[in-house]
């Protein structure tokens, strides 16, 4: 008997939850805000679904009801990807250590 591929995906999912659990507990509390903005950015990897949807039209009609939703989703996810990573970068650049020579 063969195992349904769904079971493999479920295994990946469950194991990733555990990875997430341990990785996130090790995040220092002072970086919780960047954690939220970066998780925001990476969850926008949903854009891969949006791209498939956007390219689902055929050569005669690029726009059909399905691809339009795809294009909209691409824009929304892109806002998040660029916005999320850049704002995280901006925040992280501000976290500085005490300068030893500072008087």
């Amino acid at each position, binding site marked *: 008997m063969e195992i349904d591929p769904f079971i493999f995906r479920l295994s990946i999912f*469950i194991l*990733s939850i555990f990875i997430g659990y341990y990785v996130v507990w090790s995040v220092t*509390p002072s970086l919780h805000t960047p954690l939220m903005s970066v998780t925001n950015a990476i969850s926008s*990897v949903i854009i891969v679904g949006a791209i498939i949807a956007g*390219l*689902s039209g055929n050569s005669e009609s690029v726009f059909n009801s*399905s691809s339009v939703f795809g294009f909209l989703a691409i824009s929304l996810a892109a*806002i998040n990807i660029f*916005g999320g990573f850049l704002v995280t970068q901006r925040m992280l650049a501000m976290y500085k250590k005490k300068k030893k020579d500072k008087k």
Partner: protein
Amino acid sequence: MISANLSAIFYLISGVLFILALRGLSSPETSRQGNLFGILGMIIAITVTFLTIGNFSSGFIYVLIFLLLGGLVGAFIAYKIPMTAMPELVAGFHSLVGLAAVFVAISAFLNPDAFNLGSPGNIKLGSLIEMSIGATVGAITFSGSVIAFLKLQGIMSGSPIIFKGQHPLNALILISIVVLIYLLCSSQSSNLFWILLAVSFLIGFLLIIPIGGADMPVVISMLNSYSGWAAAGIGFTLENTALIITGALVGSSGAILSYIMCKGMNRSFFNVILGGFGATEQSSALKNKEQKPVKSGNADDAAFLMKNASSVIIVPGYGMAVAQAQHALREMVDTLKKNDIKVSYAIHPVAGRMPGHMNVLLAEANVPYDEVFELEEINNDFANADVAFVIGANDVTNPVAKTDPQSPIYGMPVLDVEKCKSVLFVKRSLSPGYAGIDNDLFYKENTLMLFADAKKMTEDITKNL
């Protein structure tokens, strides 16, 4: 065009890079590198998707146009947004993830062939279940985040909106969602799909309106978690490993943050979610409001106290964010340090409107992160400090949480500010904080109240130092 196996491996790599991105956040030094891993993972995922489809027809150019359009808007927002508005921004971003998940699900429902899920009206059962769960959670994330955004932005009142029969209504809607998904899967009817989406939007809205402003740290973390589960649901539909891994990571990350926030308030998750906190207690607090003596002072007195101190602990709260006082505060601290006074910052887990809110603001004002301490790290130091400077915080310093079992905040971990030799409390008036209870600290012998706007008071103190 690359093979399905090869692309699956690339998606796995991008999932691993996302794990490393979160791992990097364990310390500020490695965090910037972590963010680069995240960006790299995203680039790989997007490129592989293009290569897998391999159809660079006329649609491709539109994909790029919409991608760049969104990217420009996102980049613009990221550079313009002030740090004090970070909670609103994050809530807004969550709503976009939710809506994108909904759109992808709609698209897959309308054109399942493109996703290899069957044909319209005859979608594979498993995919349909995964798709409807993804769409439902996405819709809840969207409308919930919009409400959270409006509350944080002040467009909507931060006080809880409660009406009779609220909880039974919500329970009824949640049950109907389960029934709808079941019916949808057995009938494949597109009408049911639209009704399911509408009901999910509605429940997201109803779930968040009873939750008050200061509980927003929990709400934002919870919505963060939901956005992850929505992404995972879509990931199952698309059979995409990168999405499944990311969804699970983000989902558990948000859940942990919610847990930390609830623990910081000594309240159960359900107590927060059911909402209405602060609305009921307010009346009783006003009732027994007897006149108790309060010592109040001005910037001159405060400066005098601090000048004669050898160590000062600063306790910032949401009020500091509202008054945008973080830069003025840093200047005050610089002056103190010039006088060889030891200064550190004490941050309560739920200070501000989102996890880590105060830390970001202090970092923005160039406060080195090794001067900023969490509750457990610094709480014993209050007894040895000369002055505690409470700026914009209230409930998190209330000693009642340790002494009065009747109090709604009893058992909540608080900063032991009252153990300091003297306490300077910057506040606009004696009004109670979010929990609606009086702060005993106001009436202590060693407390000096400074009634003023946080920013103005800090600037005045600096002048007097």
